[in-house]
């Protein structure tokens, strides 16, 4: 009897620790991202309800989640196209995201743009444009502005390995480095850019190897471990907030889908998918949470169920949202029309 009681008590204690709290948040947002993207990619897209390109971050959820947890609520985020969780963490609802994908008024761009091309300055979320890495110089400028204004917020910008081949990436980092702008750069190195493997993208082994060329620190982390990414993110954020300039974090991971919903990814060796499926960040974290006594498997099952239900409701909400009125076509090109 006594032994059982004790065990219950330790579990209780472990589940109250800050680490447990962090892990629960991480699991919640990773699961939400997975669920929302599953619906978009595997149901709504195939049902023809979602239009245009669909790019998901399956298997990479730990990156936006770990980074987002390391950010302060007033830090400014520049997510890329596989970082959906950052929106959820800043209070964008799944309904708004579905509406965005469906081209409805309820999406963040009110039907003006699609998929992950969305932002909300009031939530510190800046929209990407399609051109890879274009956000990097813009993020550098936002970081310079925060410094100019004497604020202690920082900027976090996200991109893939392929994006690091673009001039904008290099120009942006270099400018931020020279200006010692408070910028943390997160690379999701998922080893493919569309069909192009890393060794055709760059001749160095790691994206992090590029950092010394700009005089900035970099580190490499396990991209499927949100807590490790959180720790790295905290180191980067502290560095930037202390006025020491940009900090690059390379998260090694793998893209567990095609490039987009239309891409079967035949060019990826099957064996790689098999290997990396053992590294699913959600499964890994759940296992650890149970081992550490941070959560029970029952609690985890309940979380999944709750998110499934909320997602169902969100889709219903989005489908109720109207398409934009064609009469609004020419509004907002400029502050005033004419």
């Amino acid at each position, binding site marked *: 009897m006594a032994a059982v009681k004790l065990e219950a008590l330790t579990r209780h204690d472990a589940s109250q620790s800050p680490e447990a709290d962090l892990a629960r948040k991480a699991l919640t947002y990773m699961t939400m991202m997975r669920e929302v993207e599953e619906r978009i990619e595997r149901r709504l897209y195939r049902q023809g309800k979602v239009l245009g390109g669909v790019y998901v971050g399956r298997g990479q959820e730990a990156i936006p989640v770990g980074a987002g947890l390391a950010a302060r609520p007033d830090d400014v985020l520049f997510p890329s196209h596989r970082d959906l969780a950052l929106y959820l963490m800043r209070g964008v609802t799944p309904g708004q995201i579905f509406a965005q994908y469906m081209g409805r008024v309820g999406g963040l761009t009110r039907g003006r743009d699609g998929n992950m091309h969305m932002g909300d300055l009031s939530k510190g979320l800046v929209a990407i444009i399609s051109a890879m890495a274009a956000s990097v110089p813009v993020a550098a*400028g936002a970081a310079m*502005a925060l410094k100019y204004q004497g604020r202690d917020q920082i900027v976090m910008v996200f991109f893939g390995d392929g994006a690091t081949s673009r001039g904008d990436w290099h*120009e942006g980092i270099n400018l931020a480095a020279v200006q010692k702008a408070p910028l943390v750069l997160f690379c999701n190195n998922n080893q493919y850019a569309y069909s192009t493997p890393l060794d055709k993208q760059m001749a160095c082994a790691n994206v992090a190897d590029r950092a010394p060329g700009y005089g900035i620190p970099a580190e490499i982390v396990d991209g499927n471990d949100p807590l490790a990414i959180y720790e790295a993110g905290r180191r980067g954020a502290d560095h930037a907030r202390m006025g020491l300039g940009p900090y690059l974090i390379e998260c090694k991971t793998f893209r567990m889908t095609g490039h987009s919903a239309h891409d079967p990814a035949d060019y990826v060796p099957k064996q790689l998918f098999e290997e990396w499926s053992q590294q699913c960040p959600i499964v890994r974290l759940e296992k650890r949470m149970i081992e550490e006594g941070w959560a029970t498997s029952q609690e985890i099952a309940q979380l999944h169920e709750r998110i499934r239900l909320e997602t169902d409701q969100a889709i219903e909400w989005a489908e109720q949202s109207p398409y934009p009125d064609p009469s609004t076509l020419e509004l907002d090109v400029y*502050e005033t029309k004419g």
Partner: protein
Amino acid sequence: MATTYLEAIREGLFEEMDRDPNVFLLGEDIGIYGGAFKVTAGMLDRYGPRRIVDTPISESAIVGAAIGASFMGLRPVAEMQFADFISCGFDQIVNFAAKCRYRWNAPAPMVVRAPCGGGIHGGPYHSQQNEAWFAHTPGLKVVLPATARDAKGLIKSAVRDNDPVIFFEHKALYRRVKEDLPQGDYTVPLGKANIHREGRHLSVITYSAMVHVADEAASIVAKEGLSVEVIDLRTLTPLDEDTILASVRKTSKAIVFHEATLTGGFGGEIAARITEKAFEYLDGPVMRLAAPDTPVPFSPTLEEAYLPNVDKLVAKIRQLAAY
């Protein structure tokens, strides 16, 4: 004392920086050196490196950083060393800055200053007049002052505007054009053309350095009894269509005149609007005078053949007047 076009821009920038602590400048060699053309001379002393930011040679990052800073509430004024290098920052301008208000309600109030134009023996990469690239992009405003007074009033309006503005400064006008400026804080609104010279028989619709060429040509043909009206558009976006159409309805003849190359130039747009909207007033074809469709050549003989000038315009005016 008369103020040059260049000094007028500088004065405008000084006044806007004094007025609004959110205004800052960024670009290559704009600090200690005062900019390739010295437009920003004295700025570093007055405002320090926080507000006068010397950047690496990175046009895309200069424009991108201006966009990011504008999102955070600042009012950046970016300098391209020459308009010819603006193409290195093209994507940031046409895909990022121009579209963010429309896409997600995020205005990018910023100015990109670009010294443009030929006649300084600059060759293919220091002479271009590339405003049409930007006039073709919804979301941007395109400004090309011709006079010192307008240069100051328009740069001030551009800085205060809540949309991204591409501000083309003509290099050949920097020190050649001067006048007494109005006292105090004045602005010239974007989207309002100026009737530079009134006339009755024929309208020349132009902008930037060609305004002065048109004025000279008008003086020459005036001696032959031809009264030419010169419209200085001042901004291509927004375009003051009303002033163009009113002038053409009055004179019944129009020449659209610019230094940029002919095909795909903004003159085609103006000519089309005139024919669409004032056709029944026309007593002749809408004509265009522009540079030929070649790169801007270096050698003086070639550049002279390339650039539109007074003689070419006088010939065109006579041709249309005789219609």
